[in-house]
C-alpha cells in the first residue's frame, strides 16, 4: 500500500486538505458505514457513457450466461466486473495522498480579476496522479444560504427563485489537472474570477472529480475547503466641483510616519543608498554601527472621511453602493496623496489612517457596509470634528442617482 513521503506537521495539516488527511485524522467506522447509506454532500458517482455501456454489457452477458450456463460468457462477465472493481480501486489510489489548498491573494476588488490559486501536492511515494479536475465556486456570503435547509414554509417557486439568485451570483470554474502529478510533486492551478459586487465572497472547492482510470465512472469527491475574501468596492470616477478649501496650518502638521519634515521621528540602521548627511554620528559611535536619522512626515492638509448611513438619507440601494465606491476611491486617492488622516463610519470609533494597513481596514469596513434598516444614534458632528479639528468629508445623495462629497459642509466632489 502506498505510504506518504512526509508527515504533515500541525500547521500544514491546517492549510492542506485532502481525503487522506481527513480520513486519518477523524476516521470513524460509524461515519464510514453511515456514509455508505447517506453519502456526504457533493460525493457523487455517476456512470459515464462507457460506464453505462459496460454496465449494459455486463447485464446482457450476465443474463445470457445464466440462461445458457456458458462458462465463456461467465468469463467475459467476470472480466467486465473485474474491470469495474479495479477501476474503483485505481480511482481511489489515484486520489489517495493528494492534498490541496486554496491560496487567495487579497485585495480583491469588485469588477476586477482576482486570482485564486489551488495548490496540489501528491504525497504518495510511488504512484503519480492523473486526470483530476477541481470545481471551484465563488459566491457572496450575503447571497443567502446555498442550500434550502428550511423549506417548510417556502413554496417551490420561491425556492427556485432563491436558487436562481444564488446561482446568478455564483461564479463557477472547473480547473483540470492536465498533466501528471508525480509522486511528491506539486502543481498550481490558477483561476481568475471577477467578483461582481463588494462584500465577503466565499471561495469554495466544491468537489474534486475524476474519470481515472478508464472513464467508466465520473466520481466527485466533495470537499469542505472554503476561504473567504473581502471584495472592496469598485473604483468610481468622480469630479471636483471646486477646489477643496482645506484649512492649512501655518506649520504643517506632523504625522508619525517617515517623511521629510524637520522633526526627528526615529533612528534606524544605515542602509545602502542612505545619504551620509543623515548619519547620526553620536548614536553611531555609541551603538558601534552606523545609524541614520529618520524624520517625520509633514502633511500639508489632512482630510477625514465620515460616512453616515442613516436610512433617511440613503434609501436607494444603488445610490448606497455608489456611496461605498465613491468613499473607497476617495480614500485611496487621498491616501496616495498623503492627505487622509482618518475615517469613520457612523458612530463607530474613528480610524486613524497612517499606514496602508489602516487604509485596508477602512476599505474592508466599506466592503461589508450595509444599508442600515433602523436608525441608530449618530454622534454629534462636533465630536468628530473636535477630534479631527477640520476638513471632514461627508457624503450625501446627489439627485436620484449621484453622490456628492462635502468638505466641512461645502460640496467638493460629485460622481
Amino acid at each position, binding site marked *: 500500500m502506498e505510504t506518504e513521503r512526509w508527515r504533515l506537521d500541525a500547521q500544514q495539516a491546517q492549510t492542506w486538505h485532502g481525503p487522506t488527511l481527513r480520513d486519518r485524522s477523524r476516521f470513524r467506522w460509524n461515519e464510514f458505514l453511515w456514509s455508505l447509506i447517506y453519502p456526504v454532500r457533493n460525493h457523487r458517482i455517476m456512470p459515464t457513457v462507457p460506464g453505462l455501456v459496460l454496465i449494459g454489457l455486463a447485464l446482457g452477458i450476465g443474463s445470457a450466461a445464466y440462461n445458457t450456463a456458458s462458462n465463456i460468457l*461467465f468469463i467475459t462477465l467476470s472480466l467486465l466486473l473485474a474491470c469495474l472493481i479495479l477501476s474503483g480501486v485505481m480511482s481511489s489510489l489515484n486520489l489517495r495522498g493528494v492534498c490541496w489548498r486554496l491560496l487567495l491573494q487579497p485585495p480583491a476588488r469588485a469588477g476586477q480579476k482576482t486570482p485564486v490559486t489551488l495548490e496540489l501536492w501528491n504525497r504518495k511515494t510511488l504512484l503519480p496522479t492523473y486526470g483530476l479536475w477541481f470545481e471551484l465556486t465563488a459566491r457572496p456570503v450575503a447571497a443567502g444560504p446555498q442550500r434550502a435547509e428550511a423549506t417548510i414554509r417556502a413554496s417551490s417557486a420561491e425556492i427556485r427563485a432563491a436558487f436562481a439568485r444564488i446561482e446568478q451570483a455564483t461564479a463557477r470554474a472547473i480547473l483540470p489537472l492536465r498533466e501528471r502529478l508525480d509522486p511528491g510533486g*506539486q502543481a498550481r492551478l490558477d483561476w481568475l474570477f471577477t467578483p461582481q459586487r463588494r462584500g465577503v465572497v466565499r471561495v469554495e472547492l466544491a468537489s474534486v472529480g475524476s474519470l481515472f482510470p478508464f472513464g*467508466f465512472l465520473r466520481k466527485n469527491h466533495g470537499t469542505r475547503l472554503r476561504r473567504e475574501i473581502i471584495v472592496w468596492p469598485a473604483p468610481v470616477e468622480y469630479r471636483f466641483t471646486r477646489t477643496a478649501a482645506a484649512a492649512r496650518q501655518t506649520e504643517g502638521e506632523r504625522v508619525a510616519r517617515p517623511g521629510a519634515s524637520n522633526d526627528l521621528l526615529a533612528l534606524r540602521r544605515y542602509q545602502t543608498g542612505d545619504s551620509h548627511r543623515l548619519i547620526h554620528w553620536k548614536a553611531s559611535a555609541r551603538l558601534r554601527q552606523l545609524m541614520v536619522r529618520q524624520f517625520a512626515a509633514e502633511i500639508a492638509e489632512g482630510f477625514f472621511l465620515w460616512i453616515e448611513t442613516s436610512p433617511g438619507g440613503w434609501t436607494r440601494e444603488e445610490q448606497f453602493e455608489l456611496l461605498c465606491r465613491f468613499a473607497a476611491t476617495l480614500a485611496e486617492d487621498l491616501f496616495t496623496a498623503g492627505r487622509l488622516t482618518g475615517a469613520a463610519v457612523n458612530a463607530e470609533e474613528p480610524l486613524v489612517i497612517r499606514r496602508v494597513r489602516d487604509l485596508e481596514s477602512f476599505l474592508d469596513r466599506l466592503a461589508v457596509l450595509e444599508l442600515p434598516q433602523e436608525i441608530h444614534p449618530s454622534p454629534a458632528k462636533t465630536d468628530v470634528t473636535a477630534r479631527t479639528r477640520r476638513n471632514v468629508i461627508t457624503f450625501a445623495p446627489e439627485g436620484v442617482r449621484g453622490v456628492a462629497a462635502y468638505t466641512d459642509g461645502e460640496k467638493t466632489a460629485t460622481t
Partner: protein
Amino acid sequence: MEKKRPQLSLDELHQLRWLLGGGLALISVWTVFYLEIDAWVLTGIATAAILAVLMRPKLPARLPPLAHKLAFPFIVAFFAWDLYSTAEVLPAIIRLDILLLLYRGVSYRKKRDDLQIIVLGLFLVMVAGVLTVSLAFAVQILVFTGCTLAFLFVITLAEAAEGREGPGPGIRGMEHGRLPAWAGGSWRRLVRRLREVADWRLLVLGGALFVGVVAVSSLLFMAIPRFQLENSFFLDRFITKKSRTGFSDSISLGDVIDIQQDNSVALRVDVSDPARIPATPYWRMVVLDEYRAGLLRTSRRLRNDMVMAAQMTPFVTGLLPPARGAPVYWTFYFEAGISRHLPVVGPFYLLRFREPQWVEQQSSLRMTALRNEPVTMTAYRVEGMSTDGFVPDRLFGAKLRSAQRGQVADKPERKEADEHGPPRVVYPLTTLQLPERTDDRQALNQMVDSITGGVRVSAEEFATRASRWLTEMHGYSLQVVLPEGNHDPVVLWMESSLPGHCELFTAAFTLLARAAGFPTRAITGFKGGDWNAYENYFMVRNSHAHAWCEVYDGGTGWFRVDPTIGAAAMTTSRQSSAAEAALGRRLDRSWQARLDAIRILWYRRIVSFDQRTQMALLLSLKETTGTIGVALREVLGAAGASLQHWLQRPWSVPRVLDWFGAALGGVTAVVLWWRHGRSWWWRVRGTRRHGRTDPVRREAGRWLRKLVEGRTERQRHSATSKVEDLDMWADLQRLRYGPRDTWPEPQAVFRRARRARRAARRTISWR
C-alpha cells in the same frame, strides 16, 4: 520539489490512441482465424486497410466526405445482401461486424467511435469463444482486455490533457475529412518518447493492474453463483458446421483414411481411475449395419429410430446397471467438427452433459449422437462404462429369427424401396446383407469355405480364422487402388492380393462373416490414443481413426473383431488387465503434449466449471477452513495448557522480579517505539526510498562511481586535476547527496561528466 519527469503531449496521446484503437480492431478481426467462418477475404481486406492507416494516419483525410456518407448505407446493403444470399444469420452478423470494425478502424474517431470499436470487438471475441470454446479464446480475451484497458486509459488521459471533464461531444480534431494535428507525427518519435516516458512505476502499475484484473476475474468466475435454467445455448442455431464424412452414418471406402491424415487431437478423456483404461481402447462412434457396393451406412430404420427417440435432456441412461463400488468417471472432451456421434468405449450406465442437449440414442446399438453437428467442443461424462469390447444384446437373436421367418413380412418398413435402387433390407436383416450380385456371393462363399474348410465353426473361431486369412492374403497400405470391374469392389479386393487399409479389412471381414451366416456390422471410431504424461489424460487424435467389426455371438451379444492387419484378431478384451493397460499405454511427453495439457486444463477448470464443481470447491474450502480451525484450536489449547503449567509453578521472589522486569522492559520498549520509533522508521524508510528511487540521484551515483574508477588510472598519468573537473565533481556530489533546491541542471552536469570521462580515456590511450 520533485524534478518533473517527461510526459506525453496531447498529440502523442492521440497518436497512441490511434495505434491502440487500430490494434484492438485487428485483434478482434483476427478471431476469424479460429472461428472458421467464411470471411477470409473480408478479414484480409480489413487487416490490410487497418495496417495501412495505422502506418500512415494521414490516409483517412484523403477520403472524400461522400465516402463517409455512403459508408453506412453500403454496410447495411451488404449485410442485407449477405443475409439473403447465404441465409446464415450468424456468419452474416460476423461479416457485418468486421465491416463496421473496418470502417471504424480506417476513419478518424471520436470517443463514441472508440467505444464502438470496443463493443464490436468484444462481440466478435465473445461469439468466437462461445462457438469454439477454444483455448485461443482465453489468450485473445486476455490480450483484448489488456489492450482495451490501455485504450480507455489513454482516452482518459487525452481528455484530461484537453481539459475536458466527463463525457462530451468527442475528442477534438477528429472530424471526418479533416487532417488532425497529431496525424503528422512520426511513429519513430512516438516510440522514442514512449521509451523516455516509460517509468518502472508505471510499468509495474500496469502489470499489477493486469494481474489484478485476471486475479479478480478468476475469483469472480469461481464465486458467481451458478444455477441451471435448463436452456441450451442459442448461438448454435444460427450457424452450421459440417463434420468429417468418415464419422457420419454413411461412409465410402477411404473416408476414414482421409481422417487419419490429420494429426490434431479429436478427443480428450479424463478417467477417474486410469488403471481401468484398456491397453488399446476402441472408441465406438458409428454403427454401420448396411452394405452396398462399397458403401457402409447405418440403415434407414435405425436412423429413423434415432430421430424419433431424440429428446432434449441433460443425461442419457445406458442399459448397464450402476457399477458396484466406487464408480469410474470418464470425462470426454470431444472437439467440434469431428462428428455428431459421441465416442464411448462400450455400454455404460449414465452419460451426462454439462447442459441439456438434443440427443438421439439407439439403445440396442449402444450408439449416442447429438441431433445437430456440434459447433463447439462437447463435454460429457460417462459413468459405469464397460471396457471389455463386448456389447450385450440378448434380444437380437430373437429379432433376427423373427425377421428371417418373415413374421413381419406384411409390415411396410420391412422392405423399403429406394427411389432408384433395389428394395432395401431393413435391420436386423442388414447385419446379414451381402452384395447384390450372385457371382459376388458365390465368390464370398468360396472364400468362406476356404477359411472354414467347409466345417461349421463358432463365431469366435470364424473371426479368428477369417482375420488370419485376410492378413495372410493382404498387406497394409493407406494408398490403395481398387481393381476396376462391375463386381463388388470389396469382393474384387479380396480376390486380389492388393494391400488395404482398415476400412477394406473391415468391409471384407463383414462380408465374409455374413456369408458364413454370422450377423456382423462395421464400426467406425478411434482406436488407441496417447497418454499425456503431463496432465494424465488420454489424447485421441484424428490419426487414430479406425474401422472394425462387431460380430454377433449367437446368443448374448456382439463381440469386437479387428481384422486389420497388425491388430489382434479378436479383441474381446476381457482378458486385458490393469497391469497390461498400464504397460500398453503410450506415453506422450512431446512439446505438443505439453501444449495440449494447457488445453485440457482449460477444459477441466474453466469450460467444465459448473454448479457441482462450485459446490465441491466450496466444500473443499469449508473443509480446509475447518482443518485450519481445528489445528489453531489445538495450538491455542497447547499454549493455554503450557501457560497454566507455567502459572502453577511455585513463585519465588527472584522469579517474580525477573518476570516483572521483563514485562516492564517489554512495555517500555513498546511505548518507546510507539512514541519515537515509528517516526524514526518513517524517516529511515523515506530517506532510503528517496535515495534509491530518485533517477537523478541514481544517475549521479553512477557517474561518481565511473569517475572514481577512471580517476585511479588518470591519477597515474596526471598529477593535477582541472578546475572544471573539480566543479563537475562537486556538482555530481550535490546531485547525489545534496538538497534538491540546491541542485544544478542535472543533464548539463551529466554531459560535463561524460565529456570529462571521454577526455580521460583519450589521454590514457594517447599515453
